[in-house]
C-alpha cells in the first residue's frame, strides 16, 4: 500500500502540549517546584548583581536610582585609594597563609582519620563541629579570650607563667602578631569541613589500586605521592578553589577581631572590610563606590579562578 493512498491525518494539536507536560505531567511538576527557587535566585542574586554593576557607573549616595553618570569615576577613585590597594595586598598575604595551610592540615587530618579504626567517628565529629560555629562568635572568643592583650588574657597568662612579664598586645598592631589570631581562628573554623571533603575523596579511591601498588613494593610516602594525591586531584581542585574564594570573602573574623565602634585600623584590612567601611560605614550609603568595588573584586576572583583551573588542569583532566 502506497503512502499516497493513506488518508490525510489532522495535525495533532495536543502533541506539543503533551511533550511540554511530559509523562504524567512531570515537566510541569518539575517547573512548579523549581520556579520559586529560580525566581528567588533571579530576584535576590542576579538582579542585585546587575544593579550593582549599573550603580558602579553612577554617583549613588543614599539612592538606588541615581541620575548622575560618572562613567569609570568610581573605579578610578578606588584604584587610586591606597587603603583599597593595601587591602588587596592583605588578601594576598592572607591567602598565601591560609590556603596552603588549610589544605595541608585538612588533608593531613583526613589521612590520619582514614587509617585509625578506634574512635574514628568521635574524632571526625571533634574536628568538624567548629564548622558549625559562627565566625563572629569565634572572633569574639579569640579576641577577648585567647588573644586579649591584657595581663590576664589567656595567652598572656600562659606566657607570664613561662617568665615573660610584659604582656603582648596581640591585636593592637605595631607588630604582625594579629596574623596569628586571624589565621588560627580561620583554621579552627574551616579545617573540619575540608577534612570531610578529603575523606569523601579518599573513600572513592579503589582499594585495589593500593594493593597493586603494594605488590610492586610501594609504601608510605610513595603511595601518597603516586596514588593518593593524583587520585585526589579533583577534590584538591575544588578545595583550593573554595579556599581561595573564601579567603577573598574574609570579613567577619577580621571585622570583629580588629575593629572597634566605627573604627578599623589600616592594617589587617581585607577588601570586603574596606568596601564596607567606605560604602556603608557610619550609616552612610555610597552605593556607587561600593558597586565598583564589588565588580573589581568579582573580576579578580574570576581571574584567579580561571588561572587556577588552567594551572591545575595542565597535566590533563582531573
Amino acid at each position: 500500500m502506497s503512502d499516497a493512498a493513506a488518508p490525510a491525518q489532522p495535525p495533532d494539536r495536543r502533541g506539543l502540549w503533551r511533550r511540554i507536560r511530559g509523562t504524567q505531567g512531570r515537566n510541569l511538576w518539575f517547573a512548579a517546584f523549581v520556579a520559586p527557587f529560580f525566581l528567588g535566585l533571579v530576584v535576590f542574586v542576579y538582579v542585585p548583581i546587575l544593579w550593582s554593576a549599573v550603580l558602579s557607573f553612577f554617583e549613588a549616595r543614599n539612592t538606588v536610582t541615581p541620575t548622575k553618570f560618572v562613567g569609570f569615576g568610581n573605579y578610578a577613585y578606588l584604584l587610586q585609594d591606597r587603603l583599597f590597594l593595601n587591602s588587596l595586598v592583605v588578601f594576598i598575604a592572607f591567602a598565601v597563609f591560609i590556603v596552603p595551610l588549610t589544605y595541608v592540615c585538612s588533608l593531613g587530618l583526613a589521612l590520619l582519620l582514614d587509617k585509625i579504626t578506634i574512635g574514628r567517628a568521635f574524632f571526625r565529629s571533634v574536628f568538624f563541629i567548629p564548622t558549625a560555629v559562627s565566625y563572629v562568635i569565634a572572633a569574639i572568643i579569640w579576641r577577648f579570650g585567647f588573644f586579649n592583650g591584657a595581663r590576664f588574657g589567656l595567652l598572656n597568662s600562659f606566657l607570664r607563667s613561662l617568665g615573660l612579664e610584659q604582656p603582648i598586645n596581640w591585636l593592637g598592631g605595631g607588630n604582625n602578631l594579629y596574623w596569628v589570631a586571624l589565621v588560627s581562628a580561620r583554621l579552627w573554623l574551616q579545617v573540619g569541613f575540608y577534612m570531610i571533603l578529603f575523606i569523601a575523596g579518599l573513600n572513592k579511591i579503589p582499594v585495589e589500586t593500593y594493593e597493586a601498588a603494594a605488590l610492586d613494593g610501594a609504601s608510605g610516602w610513595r603511595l601518597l605521592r603516586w596514588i593518593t594525591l593524583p587520585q585526589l586531584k579533583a577534590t584538591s581542585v575544588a578545595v583550593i578553589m573554595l579556599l581561595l574564594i573564601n579567603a577573598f570573602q574574609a570579613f567577619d573574623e577580621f571585622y570583629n577581631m580588629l575593629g572597634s565602634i566605627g573604627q578599623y585600623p589600616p592594617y589587617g584590612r581585607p577588601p570586603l572590610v574596606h568596601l564596607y567601611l567606605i560604602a556603608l560605614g557610619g550609616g552612610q550609603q555610597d552605593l556607587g563606590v561600593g558597586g565598583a568595588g564589588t565588580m573589581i573584586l568579582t573580576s579578580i576572583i574570576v581571574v584567579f579562578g580561571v588561572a587556577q583551573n588552567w594551572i591545575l588542569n595542565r597535566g590533563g583532566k582531573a
Partner: protein
Amino acid sequence: MNISRRSLLLAGGSLAAAATLAACGSNNPLASGTPSEAKPSGATSPNASAPAGGGDVTLQQWYHEYGEAGVKEAVEKYAAAYTAAKVEVKWTPGDYGSILAAQLLTTDVPDVFEVEQGGSLDMIRSGQLADLTDIMAPVKDQFNPAVMKRFTFEDKVHGIPQTIDMQLLYYRPSLLQKAGVEPPKTFADLVKVADAVKSADIGGFFAGNDGGLGVLGTILIWASGNEQLTEDRSAVAFLNDNFYNALTAYRDFYKSAGLLQAASAEWYDGAAFVNGETAMQWGGLWSLPDIQKAWGDDVGVLPFPAIGAGGRPAVPFGAFGACVAAKGKNVDASKEFVKWLWIDQDEDQVDFSNSYGTHIPAKTALVAKADKLAAGPGKDAADFVSNHGFANDIMWSGAMGDAYNAAVSNVIKDGKDPKAEFAAFEATAKTELAKLAG
C-alpha cells in the same frame, strides 16, 4: 482518612502560596504593620509597642537600642502621652544606622526617627529629612550652642537634639596624690602623670586596645588648636606644624610605658577603670554611674589636655537628633509631634537625660534640673561640652575619617613621616570634599 500524594501536594502548595502572599505584606523586617493601618487588637510584634494616644493619624517613631535599662519603657510612655496622634515606637536593636539608611531608600519610611548629629550630609542632600527650621528657629537659642552649630547646615536645621553624650578623661585622685602628681593640664603633664602612677599592677593611661588611636585621633586636631575644615569647607585646615608636633608627641607617648596598650575591655566600656587596670582612662560620660559605683568620690574628670603652645582642651560630643522623614505620609503631624516631645516637654527631656545613665539635656536651662549633673564629675562634664566641646564637621565624611585614621595610625604605630602621610590624606580629602560639595 486517606491522603493522596496529589492532595498533599495541593495542600502544601496552597500553604506556600499563602505564606508568599503574606510575606508580600511588608518589606520592612522590623515593621509590625503599615503605619497608617489600624492594627487588630493584640496584633503587636515583640519590638513594637501598641499604638497609644488619640487622633486619626498613626506615626511610626524609630529609636536605636539604648544600653541603659528603662529607656524603652520611658520612650513608650512619652509616646503614649501624646494625644494628637497615635505613636508606634519601634525599638531597633543591632546596626541601627544601616537599617535606617536602607529603610529610608524605600517608600515605607518611618515618620520620626533618631539620627546621629541631626542627619548626615547625604541624607540632607538626597532629601530624606524634612526641614525643621520653622519649628526650631524660635527656640534655637535655648539649646546648647555647640550642638546647634553642628545641627545647622546652610542655615537649616533637620533634627532636634534629644540629649548630649560626650567623652572625657577619668582619673583616680587618690592614686595621683599617692604618686605626688597633680591632675594633668597639658598633654606633657599627662605623659608625666601616666608615667608616675603606673606600676606593675596598674597602667597609667588607657584609651583603647589600639593604643587610643581610634578614639583620640580626631581629638589631636582640636587639642592642637586646629579645626577640621576651613570656614568655607573647601579644604582641610589642620595640616601645620602644631598638628604634626601633636602627632609626634603622641607617638612618643605611645611608645612609653605610661600608656596601657591593652585592657580587658575597650575605651567605651568603663570596665578597665572599674577593675583597677588603669589609673586614668579616656571614656564616655555614660560610664559615670558604673565608675562612681566602683570608686565613690575617688573619681575626677578632665577634658583631653591641650597639646603644644597653640593647643586647647577638647572633648568630643555627640547628640542624636529627632528627625522627620520628608517622604513620610504625615510630615506635618510628625513635626507637631517632635516639637511637642523634644521642644515643649521639658520634664520628659530631663527624665530622658537623667534617669537612665548620665547624659546632658540638650537645652541648657534643663542642665540645672538634672541632679546627676548638679555637682562633682557630672557638673564638670556638662561644663566641658559648653567650653571645650567639638564635633566632626558635617562634611567630615566616613571615607575621609577612615583615611585620616589610617594616616594617624601609620605615623604613630609605624613611625612614618607625618607630612608625607598627610599629603596623601589631603589628596583624598580634596577629592571627597569636591564630591560632597556637589
